[in-house]
């Protein structure tokens, strides 16, 4: 047992921190919140260059194999810097695509995700994060909480069809491009079932330099460079969630779909559908996005149609695994958000004076910050323990602990900043609002606590 980050992992965190500090992420967040994704895509590329997405992609597709510990390290830093975009979703999409064991589709999409040339979004619920700027949209019914009835829990819809060679070209120099392996490729043995024990206890390869420069023939990322892409017409029989109507009391049927989205890196190859194309950079008018309390997040109802996959145990397993990784990455991101909030608030209360003294000398202020510190410091080992076991109960525990610690810290940060903290123009707001949003993303506290309890009596 050596439950500590090693030198390389710490160096990875430090290099990400330095890169993100230099990148002035608050201004990127503000661009992103205005719908201008230019600076965000540029940052995305640098994050990919640093190797972050490679940590979720198998080696044969140009990644470094799934490395949950390093992903946790990376997402803590991404959270600390409030980096916008479907970061968690891209990682989870990669895990899902790999798990489907359809080499054709994986080969088309995964190298571009690893390299940062493509951005994916993914949901097991009814709304997809930042679907307007993602190149790939995946949706699957939550394998854990979906209610019985159509669509079945593990049904998956896929568009475009897997045999359409329309994904971004893999870089020609990719050494790991392998021929299709349709039956049980060797790497499948590394995650035979969920939960999966961490396969590697040896030190990972150093994460930088990035093995995946952006694909040379990808168009430059930017909000106005999305060409129109086809969207199949909504079938009359598909129920669409109405954004303004009250939501039903029980979980609504998830319209699971794996659909491509108007995409910068996906050429407008026609599909079997022939609907009028929506304007490229805005969502379909029938599906206006919901703004989030976090201004850097917009949540898009799923478009109709999609490419269904037959239900299979393998699909279920892959979806479960993707969900686990999404939850772990969200928890790590939340911890980073909380750590940043604590750091900023500690700095603020040292310099803000009232009644002639720094407010940080008041005992009530100290104790609230001490409580935030305790909550964050006990969430941290849960995260890394989870990254090692990847058991659903552990992941759920880490999600609750990290998100509750981050939200508690956000409440403290707002209260101790007072009115200045309540303003959108003060950068603290970028973290405050994210702490709230991440709390419900990828399984709220209720869902996760139920999973902790359903784990059954076992020795930890």
């Amino acid at each position, binding site marked *: 047992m050596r439950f500590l980050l090693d030198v390389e992992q710490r160096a990875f965190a430090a290099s990400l921190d330095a890169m993100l500090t230099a990148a002035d992420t608050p201004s990127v967040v503000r661009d992103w919140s205005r719908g201008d994704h230019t600076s965000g895509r540029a940052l995305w590329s640098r994050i990919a260059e640093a190797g972050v997405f490679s940590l979720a992609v198998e080696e044969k597709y140009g990644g470094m194999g799934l490395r949950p510990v390093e992903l946790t390290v990376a997402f803590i830093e991404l959270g600390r810097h409030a980096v916008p975009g479907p970061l968690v979703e891209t990682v989870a999409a990669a895990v899902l695509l790999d798990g489907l064991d359809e080499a054709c589709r994986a080969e088309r999409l995964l190298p571009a995700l690893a390299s940062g040339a493509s951005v994916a979004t993914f949901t097991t*619920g*009814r*709304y997809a994060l930042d679907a307007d700027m993602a190149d790939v949209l995946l949706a699957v019914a939550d394998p854990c909480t979906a209610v019985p009835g159509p669509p079945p829990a593990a049904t998956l819809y896929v568009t475009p069809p897997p045999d359409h060679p329309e994904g971004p070209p893999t870089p020609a120099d990719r050494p790991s491009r392998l021929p299709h392996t349709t039956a049980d490729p060797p790497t499948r043995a590394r995650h035979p079932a969920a939960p999966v024990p961490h396969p590697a206890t040896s030190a990972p390869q150093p994460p930088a330099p990035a093995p995946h420069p952006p694909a040379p023939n990808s168009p430059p990322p930017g909000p106005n460079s999305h060409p129109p892409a086809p969207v199949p017409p909504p079938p009359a029989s598909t129920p669409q969630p109405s*954004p303004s109507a*009250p*939501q039903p*009391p*029980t979980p609504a049927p998830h319209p699971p779909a794996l659909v491509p989205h108007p995409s910068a890196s996906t050429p407008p190859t026609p599909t079997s559908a022939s609907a009028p194309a929506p304007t490229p950079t805005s969502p379909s008018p029938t599906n206006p996005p*919901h*703004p*989030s*309390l*976090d*201004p850097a*997040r917009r*949540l898009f109802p799923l478009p109709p149609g999609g490419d269904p996959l037959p239900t299979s145990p393998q699909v279920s397993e892959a979806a479960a695994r993707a969900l686990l990784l999404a939850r772990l990455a969200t928890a790590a991101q939340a911890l980073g958000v909380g750590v940043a909030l604590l750091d900023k608030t500690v700095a603020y209360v040292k310099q803000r004076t*009232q*009644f002639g*003294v720094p407010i940080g*000398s*008041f*005992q*009530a*202020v100290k104790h609230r910050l001490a409580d935030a510190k305790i909550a964050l410091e006990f969430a941290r080992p849960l995260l890394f323990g989870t990254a090692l076991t990847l058991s659903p109960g552990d992941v759920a525990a880490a999600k609750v602990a990290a998100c509750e610690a981050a939200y508690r810290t956000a409440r403290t940060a*707002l*209260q101790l900043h*007072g*009115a200045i903290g*309540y*303003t*959108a*123009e003060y950068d603290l*707001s970028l973290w*405050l*609002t994210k702490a*709230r*949003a991440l709390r*419900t*993303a990828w399984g*709220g*506290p*209720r869902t996760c606590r139920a999973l902790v309890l359903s784990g059954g009596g076992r020795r930890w």
Partner: protein
Amino acid sequence: MDLAFTQEEEAFRAEARAWLAAHVPGAALPSLETAEGFAAHRAWEAELAADRWSVVNWPVEYGGRGADLVRWLLFEEEYWSAGAPGRVGQNGISLLAPTLFDHGTEEQRARVLPSMATGEVVWAQAWSEPEAGSDLASLRSRARRTDGGWLLSGQKTWSSRAAFADRAFGLFRSEPDLPKPHQGLTYLMFDLRAPGVTVRPIGRLDGKPAFAELFLDEVFVPDEDVIGEPGQGWRIAMSTAGNERGLMLRSPGRFLAAAEALRTLWTDRGSPRHEEDRVADALIGARAYQLFTHAAASRFLEGDPLGAESSLNKVFWSELDLALHETALDLLGEEGEFADTPWSEGYVFSLAGPIYAGTNEIQRDIIAERLLGLPKGRR
């Protein structure tokens, strides 16, 4: 001891209920914190005022009905229970008007109050300054004597409603060299469109300009807009803090309505037992707040002054409001994150509760020192 209302009081309640049922807009108005919503809410004030419902507790001559505290409580219960819009005139009605009744001149009341009652003039408060938050007495904005009035200079901030309002009121330092910080302050009213005033709206957490910074550069204010004696502003501002104004800051009807809405949301979501505690506690808290207010109103009507219990009140309603909205967002599940729902608008508003009108930390200090008699510490 009783909670019974007279026949006349019940008739008043019934009249209010009937009027509201006929007039409350069917759909929610746009957010008060937007230009469009502000205008819509101003129009609603006019509609209220047309039938004398905007300031029921004011004398008839200024647009009210001369209702007593009991009727005011009944009206507020009916108002919020009917789902009526938020009150854009709130700052003027609950903060400035009581001061004018106690310390203003007849001329000031006649000039200021009627247009406040109709929403024709909407007032913003201008208390805080960048360096004077919890430590409010440390104000730096200046009022300098000039012919026939005063010249205001300095910076105010967290001026709620100021992004769209017409006029503002606040304290300014007119005698800068006095030994104690709360001496030499003067209470003034001024025009937000006067020369020398720059209003910079500030977006709150959800980006909506719920308040503004005010930059004042030699803004002329005539003597007629000084309230009370110059230099006595602190005393004047504080003297009405402990009267029924404290009661009226956040009316019980508001939380009763919100708690009932939460219960409805909970029921609509299938009455999940795992949220039973928090929903029940919201209902219990709203009822407790209502009855606490009834008790305070009863004491007030008997002539007892209301004092430090307003600190109990402030902490209680602000924590109730926040807990209630957090519960609602949790009930909404993944949609709890959406910014475009009434619940999230209410949540963002509730986050400010523990901060404004004296932070809850300051209120707890006051409770401990004034109500419990604990020794002053350095905090």
